[in-house]
């Protein structure tokens, strides 16, 4: 009684809506609709902009009120670091939420039913998120940088320094966000992934502080040079933070790019092999 019997297929339904194959562009439009229709986006990015502007202007005003600029050979752009550090926490949160909230609500099943190509969904999320964060961070960082240079008298920054403090800062933050998005995909849990990302940001510095032993000095120096906040400082300054071994110039952006690509590659592999 349970054997399936072949049946003459009756008339089958044909939809009057024209059928066309969906592509990455459709997924991008969809992800843009998703990210712009959530309040968490407004909150995280809004807070980030406010922090960067507030801290940037505040530091510039305080320094300008002081008699003279402390570091003679550094341009005023370096003060953008504080805002960038705080802004990175907001970006990490948004990066995790972009995907982990879909897992939290179960929306991911609906999404992957509407688009069985999981890689396309992840790629579209990454592109939309990157573009949004890069644009907003670069614009904000530019405003802050212009204000700081105008308010504080110091050596005139070079073109390369200008680029690093604006586009470089935007790229660095957006790439950090992509790492968070990948971690969110791997962990599938908002709170867990956000905690991990903040740990990744703070742990190296905290751990380095307790590495008093001489035998660990190599590890300590490496941690101090390559911790995320140190990389942000390096992005602004012309000399490496810890001796000559640390990243300089555009190095932090390249390091983050490699990290983001690696993390997204892992997320892609896991997403494709796992049950949703």
């Amino acid at each position, binding site marked *: 009684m349970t054997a399936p019997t072949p049946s003459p297929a009756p008339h089958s339904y044909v939809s009057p809506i024209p059928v066309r*194959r969906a592509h990455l562009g459709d997924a991008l439009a969809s992800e843009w609709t998703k990210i712009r229709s959530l309040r968490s986006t407004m909150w995280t990015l809004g807070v980030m902009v406010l922090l960067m502007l507030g801290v940037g202007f505040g530091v510039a005003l305080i320094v300008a009120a002081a008699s003279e600029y402390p570091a003679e050979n550094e341009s005023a752009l370096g003060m953008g670091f504080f805002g960038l550090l705080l802004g990175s926490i907001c970006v990490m949160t948004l990066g995790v939420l972009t995907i982990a909230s879909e897992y939290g609500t179960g929306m991911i099943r*609906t999404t992957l039913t509407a688009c069985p190509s999981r890689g396309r*969904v992840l790629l579209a999320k990454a592109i939309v998120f990157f573009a949004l964060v890069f644009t907003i961070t670069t614009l904000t960082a530019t405003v802050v940088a212009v204000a700081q240079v105008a308010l504080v008298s110091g050596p005139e920054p070079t073109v390369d320094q200008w680029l690093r403090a604006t586009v470089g800062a935007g790229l660095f933050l957006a790439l950090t966000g992509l790492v968070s998005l990948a971690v969110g995909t791997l962990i599938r849990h908002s709170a867990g992934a956000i905690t991990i990302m903040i740990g990744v940001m703070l742990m190296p510095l905290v751990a380095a502080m307790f590495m008093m032993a001489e035998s660990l000095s190599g590890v300590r120096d490496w941690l101090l040079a390559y911790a995320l906040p140190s990389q942000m400082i390096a992005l602004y300054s012309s000399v490496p933070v810890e001796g000559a071994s640390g990243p300089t110039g555009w190095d932090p952006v390249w390091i983050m790019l490699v990290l983001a690509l690696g993390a997204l590659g892992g997320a892609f592999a896991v997403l494709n092999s796992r049950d949703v």
Partner: protein
Amino acid sequence: MIEAIGLTKRYGAKTAVYNLSFQVRPGVVTGFLGPNGSGKSTTMRMILGLDRPTAGSVTIGGHPFPQLPNAPRQVGALLDAKAVHGGRSARNHLLSLAQLAGIPAQRVDEVLGVVGLQEVARQRSKGFSLGMGQRLGIAAALLGDPQVLLFDEPVNGLDPEGILWVRNLMRKLASEGRTVFVSSHLMSEMALTADHLIVIGRGQLLADMPVREFIAANSAGFARVRTPEGEPEQREKLTAALTEAGGQVLSEPDGALRVAGLPLPRISDLAHGADVRLWELSPHQASLEEAYMRLTQGAVDYRSTDDRLAHLQAPPQPGQPGYGQPPQPVIPEVPQQGWYAPPPPGQNPYASPQPSDTPKDAR
């Protein structure tokens, strides 16, 4: 057309679905029944390529779902009405899905109209009631105007008007030549909606047949016969005659007889032959619920027990009346009665009291 062949899914040591083979054909509503935890949702997820089968395969129109060209235009599904981001408005939720599938945006407003959510389309779905959430889920399933539709518990939380609407919608979708696969716990609803049934228990196929056949195969229809009250000899005479003719006769608590194995006209003829008057001769078609209960009895994972509040009761003192041993439940031979015959005219206990010449004995 959905076709599963030897579908098996294991989660660690637990086998959720085992060696499941079935076909869901277009043009009819196919019901998918099974007790809680029997693997219905797992099967649905495997059909949609969300979970990977441990063994076997399931195809839609000949392709596994992930390889289906234009999958969202061919298959629509409501898996879980809560699978939406509550912070997003109904319209934006549907718009993002439409964009993802390459469906024109005006279709979003069409399906919002179909499910009757236009008024709340711009509200965040967090505040939606269970029924509104179901409607939103159904809208998402209809978005691509697909040929194959899967609904997991679509009437959960809907009001009677909504249930009627879903029933008509399912039937309409099927009549347009689509494949409609619906799981539900509401047997009465399934009996009205589905044409074909696939029943699973503990992850294995129990039945795959039309509803009518399913009821006939899993429960016996019978006739209820009532002889004049107060004349037991008439009843005994009729019982003897019916038994002699090959019928199975069971006595019901209120004095009626339950006769199986004899058609109604034959019962009437036999009664006439035995010179017995009949007060009632009614056909009783078993319900889908009875048939389902009977079939899945052995396959229920989560069975409730009586809450006896044992720890709150003082231990019974010997020789003192009180709650003693609870009475052992009697397992009925026949399926539970689905309905009760209305009392004969004049004996309606809810009507205004009338002088009664035959005092009813207390039961």
